[in-house]
């Protein structure tokens, strides 16, 4: 790494073009697809409580995603992004972190947030943009954020969070906080300029950041191989930027956990940023706005269904006798009931008060904003039937 000290390079006298074949990046796998452990692999040091917490979170996210896709189809929420098939990537990595580490996600890391302790009610309040949403109903569903849980609010523009993670981690390093930042993104987002800027700067500044690429095979409809990139995925880019890099089976929660645990140690103890490429598959559509049957085959999906991270982990846990089939089913039913109950409650809660429209543009609303709000309220009073969500409670917003 970093051999070029002002071009003090080995001299050759014959032209030789490199094609990348000199760098073959393998994939770490501990848990095989059938839920058994590779003979020479070492299962990370995870006790029963932690294993079951990871499993519970995976199961919860599976249910949440399935229910909310259904809720979107019923017209109860406007939009949804599922993490179906990628639960091990976000939950396995979040489990390997300290609760004080910052998480900066893309929009398919609800698993990491749930692992941190975001409640089913908090999820629902955001999804329904109601007045209890921490984001005050300002962003589309799935754009979660929670300062208390060190989970940076999600933004739709792709890859913008990656250089921000570099900056955040720089601040953590300068504060001698002993914490790091993990930043998630997809292989599509890794084509954005921000990705390249971020990794280069992180390597140059040696910040405690873990860049976790969920390579799930698709950016909406564009397949990764040959259309998103022509090289060997994302991992070689980390090496090129002078960064410790590892590729893992993103559907193997143990491989994800172990890699992230070691990455955290490198980040926090040695200020070494790390790139992890988790190989997975987006079992759902990109969002509720697209239908994957238009751009991929059922056979391809079936092949990946066999690698399902949740089923794989469940098989392991049952064999380990930390879980029974019956318990898994009961837990599933219990969580499903909780999700349904929270959904029903959240959709009854009103939208935020109209005064929230101008708050947080700046730390305090400007004079112009206050005038604009008063004009708007006067207009709503004139045509209350046109604005039913706010017309009945225009006053008393300032608490």
């Amino acid at each position, binding site marked *: 790494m970093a051999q070029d000290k002002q071009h003090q390079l080995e001299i050759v006298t014959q032209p030789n073009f490199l094609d990348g074949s000199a760098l073959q990046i393998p994939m770490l796998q501990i848990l095989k697809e059938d839920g058994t452990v590779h003979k020479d692999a070492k299962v990370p040091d995870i006790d029963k409580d932690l294993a079951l917490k990871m499993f519970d979170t995976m199961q919860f996210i599976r249910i949440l995603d399935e229910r909310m896709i259904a809720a979107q189809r019923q017209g109860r929420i406007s939009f949804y992004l599922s993490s179906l098939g990628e639960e091990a990537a976000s939950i396995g990595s979040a489990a390997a972190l300290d609760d004080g580490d910052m998480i900066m996600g893309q929009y398919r890391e609800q698993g990491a947030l749930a692992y941190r302790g975001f409640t089913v009610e908090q999820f629902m309040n955001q999804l329904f943009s109601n007045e209890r949403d921490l*984001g005050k109903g300002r962003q589309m569903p799935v754009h979660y954020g929670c300062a208390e849980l060190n989970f940076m609010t999600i933004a739709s523009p792709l890859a913008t969070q990656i250089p921000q993670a570099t*900056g955040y981690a720089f601040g953590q390093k300068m504060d001698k906080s002993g914490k790091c930042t993990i930043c998630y993104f997809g292989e599509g987002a890794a084509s954005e*300029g921000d990705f390249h*800027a*971020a990794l280069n700067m992180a390597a140059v500044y040696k910040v405690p950041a873990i860049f976790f690429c969920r390579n799930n095979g698709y950016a909406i409809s564009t397949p990764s191989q040959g259309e998103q990139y022509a090289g060997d995925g994302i991992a070689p880019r980390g090496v090129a930027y002078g960064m410790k890099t590892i590729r893992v089976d993103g559907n193997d929660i143990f491989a994800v956990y172990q890699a992230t645990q070691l990455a955290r140690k490198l980040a926090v103890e040695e200020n070494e940023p790390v790139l992890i490429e988790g190989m997975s598959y987006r079992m759902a559509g990109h969002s509720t706005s697209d239908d994957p049957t238009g751009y991929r085959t059922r056979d391809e999906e079936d092949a990946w269904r066999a690698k399902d991270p949740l089923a794989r982990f469940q098989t392991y846990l049952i064999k380990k006798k930390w879980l029974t089939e019956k318990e898994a089913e009961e837990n599933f039913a219990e969580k499903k009931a909780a999700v349904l109950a929270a959904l029903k409650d959240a959709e009854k809660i009103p939208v935020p008060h109209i005064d929230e429209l101008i708050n*947080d543009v*700046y730390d305090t609303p400007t004079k112009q904003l206050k005038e604009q709000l008063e004009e708007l309220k006067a207009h709503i009073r004139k045509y209350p039937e046109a604005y039913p969500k706010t017309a009945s409670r225009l006053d008393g917003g300032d608490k």
Partner: protein
Amino acid sequence: MAKMNLLQAINNALDIAMAKNDKVYSFGEDTGSFGGVFRATSGLTEKYGRHRNFNTPLVEQGILGFANGLASQGSYAIAEIQFGDYIFPAFDQIVNESAKFRYRSGNEFNVGGLTIRTPYGGGIAGGHYHSQSPEAYFAHTPGLKIVMPRNPYMAKGLLLSAIFDPNPVLFMEPKRLYRASTGEVPEEEYTLELGKADVVREGKDLTIVAWGAQVEMAEKAAEKAAEDGIDCEVIDLVSLLPWDIDTVAESVMKTGRLVVTQEAPLTNGFASEVAATIQDKCFLYLESPIARVCGLDTPYPLSHEKEYFVDHLKVYEAIKASMTY
């Protein structure tokens, strides 16, 4: 008090901010021990170390992405973009990220500690890509504050306010005046209010509004008009976002005439915003149409810079036209 040029005043403000708070960081292309291409950050690395004032790789979107992240962490991030003309790779990070960080999170997170410093403007034989005044692009973005100082005294006080203001601030420095503008500047810390216009010359016949380097042209035009017996009031807007509507409106209610001048091209510039707002607030007080004296709607030229430049003569002609309407 000490005599400083505009660059020295900015350097002095950065020095004071960095001495005051350990979490103030300054960075940009070549801004480390070299001190930046204009030398605005010179001496800071020696004084505060290479982790407080440092070079970045050559990537504006990365500079702003990094700065947003650092500010969201609770630090004061002062990012220099070498020329305003090169700010556009960072447009997404500024417009979609800095400006919306607090709002989109419901105030869970903010980048209030962010200040973006960038030199702007023409008159230095810089051609297309070292002369632009891109303030209007950003002035269309709720959540940002935009400040443009006209002289060393204003630059220091405003920059100190910008750095510690709890909102992201775009601080645009008139590079034509970096060394040309000198004046007495207090050596100690002081701040000037953001969002407040400054009446730099009082008058009763006509109001001229300008900001940044263009205030000099407004003042010169006012002096020339005074020889004709025309008494102009000159207002430095200082902040474009939020901007001080009341001070301008009060002045126009007194004078009945308004000339707005900017370096940037005419169409969709900030002068248009001032004109639209003032005709709304002061319609019945106006004696003549509001005039905008601006750059042509061309890319910034090189060999015709002198002709293109919005000099005091063009402003003076607009004053006379308004007076004789």
